[in-house]
């Protein structure tokens, strides 16, 4: 063995030990443990709901709900401080849940009525939600800085109680989103056909809206209101580049969701950057790489319908 090789072997060994220690340190940190549980759950559930939203071409619904949830946060805060609760944000998350549910159902009902443009309703909720949140938090004696934790996420402040709520809601979302997959697929794919089959279209659409609202409130702690929707939509956008089936799109998106959430979180363990922003930037980077790779790999040159019989007779028969 040459001295050189010995040195590099030792260096590799030292590097390995360092990585092992770092991982062990990361996993033994209680704060990180809670954050990881939250990240895995959010990464898992957000794409389930997102798949239905993308299928219904309602990619921005999550944003609308998120903005409304912000008003709920402020309202919860206002009620909490009026009631003298400690800490004052005890009711912030419950407030967000209630507001998000109401907002989601409102969007669903209004867009079903069709009287008003669904797009405009969504816009009204966006602005109303943000303005209401800022206004109410001021009345509650806070500042808009108080809202920042909810706007951009604060995974490091996740408590054991938060984790319990997150797990409970996550299980509920998965139960609805996966248990009712066939029915939700049918309704999201073609609502008119579903109605012509006697399916309870409105109830199923509201079920999607409700799980979307719950997802927003669960994911709010991890990535923040402003980026919640990205976790629902971007993994689905990545998955559908490489898949052909609905089922596979959903499962691939779930895997991607967990992957980007955990990766982003782990990076923030060593680098002082925003977890939510890191997660979303990673997701979008993955999208760019996959889209580019897919574009390079198969340039469609072949006839997409080789088995199609010819419709037009090119030879004019002599008469």
């Amino acid at each position, binding site marked *: 063995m040459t001295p050189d090789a010995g040195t590099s072997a030792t260096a590799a060994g030292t590097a390995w030990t360092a990585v092992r220690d770092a991982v062990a340190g990361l996993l033994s940190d209680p704060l990180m443990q809670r954050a990881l549980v939250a990240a895995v759950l959010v990464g898992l559930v957000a794409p389930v709901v997102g798949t239905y939203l993308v299928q219904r071409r309602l990619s921005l619904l999550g944003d609308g709900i998120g903005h409304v949830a912000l008003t709920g946060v402020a309202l919860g805060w206002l009620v909490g401080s009026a009631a003298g609760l400690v800490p004052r944000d005890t009711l912030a998350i419950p407030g967000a849940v209630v507001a998000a549910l109401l907002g989601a159902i409102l969007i669903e009902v209004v867009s079903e009525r069709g009287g008003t443009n669904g797009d405009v309703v969504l816009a009204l909720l966006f602005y109303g939600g943000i303005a209401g949140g800022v206004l109410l938090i001021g009345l509650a004696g806070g500042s808009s800085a108080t809202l920042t934790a909810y706007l951009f996420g604060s995974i490091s402040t996740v408590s054991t109680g938060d984790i319990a709520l997150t797990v409970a809601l996550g299980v509920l979302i998965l139960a609805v989103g996966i248990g009712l997959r066939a029915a939700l697929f*049918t309704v999201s794919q073609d609502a008119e*056909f579903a109605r012509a089959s006697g399916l309870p279209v409105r109830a199923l659409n509201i079920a999607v809206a409700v799980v979307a609202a719950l997802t927003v409130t669960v994911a709010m702690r991890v990535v923040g209101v402003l980026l919640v929707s990205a976790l629902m939509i971007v993994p689905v956008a990545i998955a*559908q580049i490489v898949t052909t089936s609905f089922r596979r799109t959903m499962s691939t998106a779930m895997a991607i969701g967990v992957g980007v959430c955990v990766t982003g979180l782990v990076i923030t363990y060593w680098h002082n950057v925003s977890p939510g922003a890191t997660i979303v930037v990673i997701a979008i980077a993955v999208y760019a790489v996959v889209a580019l790779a897919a574009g390079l790999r198969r340039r469609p040159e072949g006839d997409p319908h080789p088995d199609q019989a010819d419709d037009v007779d090119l030879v004019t028969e002599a008469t």
Partner: protein
Amino acid sequence: MPDVIRAADVRVRLGQSLVVRGVDLTLSDGEAVAVMGANGSGKSTLVRALVGILPIESGTVDIFGARLVPSGRGLPWHRTGYVPQRVSAAGGVPATALEVVTSGLLYRGRLRPPRNAHALALDALDEVGLAGRAGSSVRALSGGQQQRVLIARALVRRPDLLLLDEPVAGVDRPSQVAFARTLAALVERRVTVLIVLHELGTFAPLIGRTVVLRHGVVVHDGPPLPPARGHDAPDHVHLHPYVDVPGGRDVRALTEPNLGSQQ
């Protein structure tokens, strides 16, 4: 045995306008009826009301003897198949032909597909000649193939009543012929068929009765009519696919003013 469809004095409003204005329509068991009429005559609206997509303003609809109500309660949905007028079967997320057809196995009271859903869906795709494309994303299929997927979605639950809204609009001739053959087999099995068409075309041999709507009112209910004047001239520019359908009716039989009232 009750009539398969009995619609009495049905009125349907779309926005401000009354599109269907008092239509009576009865289909007996095993009948194949074509609903025809110009664009805007209310034929699609009528069919969409019959399957419960559009609310009926007044009048009554009974399907297999059960009253159609807005909640959809009490109707034998599993006995009814509907093919919408549609160009694309693709949603925002990729879905395979098999997945889209499987969605036809769900109806009121059944929110999850049955155990043998896969085999049933493959059978239905086979019936429309697409068994080989079961795993293909519907996005990758041509318009005609997508339309056949939607037909398979209606057939998969083995309906006793099939309502089709211009099922071959934009479908090429070989596909039309193939579909007419599928439909003929269904009619032979005494499936009741209500089909909205612009022209009888390939389906002429199957259709026993034609209902013509004009401005939301039935103006003809009886034997199939010859093509409107100007559409029957030898130099008429439409490609009438039935001219050389193997086993189809001779075009001359349709141009002779023999059936029903000339319009």
